[in-house]
């Protein structure tokens, strides 16, 4: 049977494996915010909002639109690094629903076979 995220979390707490952790890829508004900011930076790194016939202007020795892209990617690197620092990749975490149900199904089938046998 499918378990909710709260049940999963409680289950892990009761097993004493990850008292400090939340769901690996959920439950951190900061991490979600960082990933949202990264998406915005990607949007602005591409100069779709600039006229393609404008004269060359330099910023830090580069064409200004290139410098903007480099700055965006620099910020993406910092934010993404922080996001990975906030990401708990827990080898003992409960499997996602997409896979957990497979084991539930397999166990149920095995039990059914045993019962029939």
């Amino acid at each position, binding site marked *: 049977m*499918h378990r909710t995220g709260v049940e999963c979390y409680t289950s892990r707490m009761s097993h004493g494996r990850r008292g400090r952790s939340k769901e*690996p*890829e959920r439950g951190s508004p900061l991490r979600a915010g960082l*990933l949202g900011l*990264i998406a915005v930076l*990607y949007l602005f*790194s*591409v*100069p*779709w909002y*600039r*006229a*393609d*016939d*404008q004269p*060359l202007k*330099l910023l*830090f*020795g*580069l*064409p200004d*639109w*290139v410098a903007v*892209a*480099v700055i*965006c*990617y*620099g910020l*993406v*690197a910092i934010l*993404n*690094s922080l*996001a*990975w*620092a906030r*990401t*708990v*990749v*827990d*080898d*003992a*975490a*409960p*499997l*996602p*629903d*997409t*896979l957990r*149900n*497979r084991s539930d*199904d*397999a166990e149920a089938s095995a039990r059914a076979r045993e019962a029939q046998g």
Partner: protein
Amino acid sequence: MNFSEMGLAALLVYVGVLLVVGEIASRSRRDLSPKDHFLGGRELGVFVLFLTLYATAYSGNSLLGYPGKAYRVGFSFVMATGFMMAIIVVFHVLVPRLRPAAVQRGYVTPGDFVRDRFSGEPGSRALVASVGILMALALANFILAQLKAMGDVASLVTGDLIPYSWGVVGLAAMILFYETRGGMRAVAWTDAAQGILMGVGLVTLLVWLLDGSGGIEQITLEVARIRPDAVRVPDAAGCANWFSTIALLGLASVIYPQAIQRVYAAKTGRALSQSFAWMTFMPLATTLVVTLIGIAAIPRVELAAGVASDGVMPVLLREWAQDGGLGQAAAILVFIGALSAIMSTADSCLLSLGSLIVRDLLGQRGESARQTRMGKMLAAAVLLAIIPLALERDLTLWRLIELKMELLIQCVPAFLLGIHWTRQSAMATLLGLLAGTIFAVSLTLLGVTKWGGIHVGVIGLGLNFLVVVAVSTLTGSSTGRARA
């Protein structure tokens, strides 16, 4: 000793070191199981994992293909920094869920996940085989690009004392030797040394270029004078291509079989997230650097468009070597660094290919030494089959990357959507994969590579997603229905 003789000596020393590392790795193995050979017994710690991820991600394409592309198109190729970084961003969607499953269910190949996720559903076996075929083709293409680049570099660093064809064959044999002897351990350890060499070499080259050209501002002004198109803001199609390339490489690279296997091979999940936290900075230290190197070459050298422009980096290095003394030694260091990058990617691909053929295409599972042996032999056979193709030199490295990605990206829904959406069915995923692949391959064969700047592979992925969502919603997987 002249440049060619020094280059030959450096190459021989380098190859000797690789063979020794391969032998040490071989003696460090625990057993002959696929897990030990293909995943290094899941023992890669933060430092080695970071360096092997780095050396594998940055290949002959990065070192020769990217400067060539930057030389051809100019500053708009700064997009490369964005797409290389996008890979580490997109991993957020996959890794936190895939890694625990890989450890708990004992995955060795990407197909192990697909088999597990869609097990028991109609079409699941065909889906595993289709994903395996696309991945095997992409890996073979990747190995082909590396062999071509290896031959080029060996010929250039030795001043043709080692001709292109000897370089391809000889270095391929070296890779085969240490990869089959030491497996993932040999690959990861040599990757670590190769990653350090590559990083040091590239930064040294950029410093020399900037110093010799009067700084970045002077280079930009010179480029603007010689080739105004290279500094111009991209038009609408150029911007669409920028977004498309980020999507193509950012999404497809995440499901590189060799990348997924490193996710499996990490010692702990924490080591993995720490490695990614460092890896995200590497596009700035590598891709941006090679892009600037390609652009800095515009005022310095004149090369024909197409395949010849992939030679921009070697041409610069030979020019550097002509300064003599320190310049000569530094140029050889960069050459060997480039060769390292190329070989580290080729060995990773070969290792993945062997495991993928045995487990995902031939359906051999379990932990026996026989499967490991079979994987080694099949990888060797594929390598031998690819070598003649590598002796043909008529495609740019960049085009080879695009071709590979357009195939690989069609596997994205099976992984990125499949790990999150319970209702997704095997049959829907298979139909989507086939629709996207047929669309992308057909247009490519007709000579259409982009529509309005967007790669046909990315449009194919859109079609692929639509089919997966529509068919899954209408039919749904057995698990999804059971839960509903």
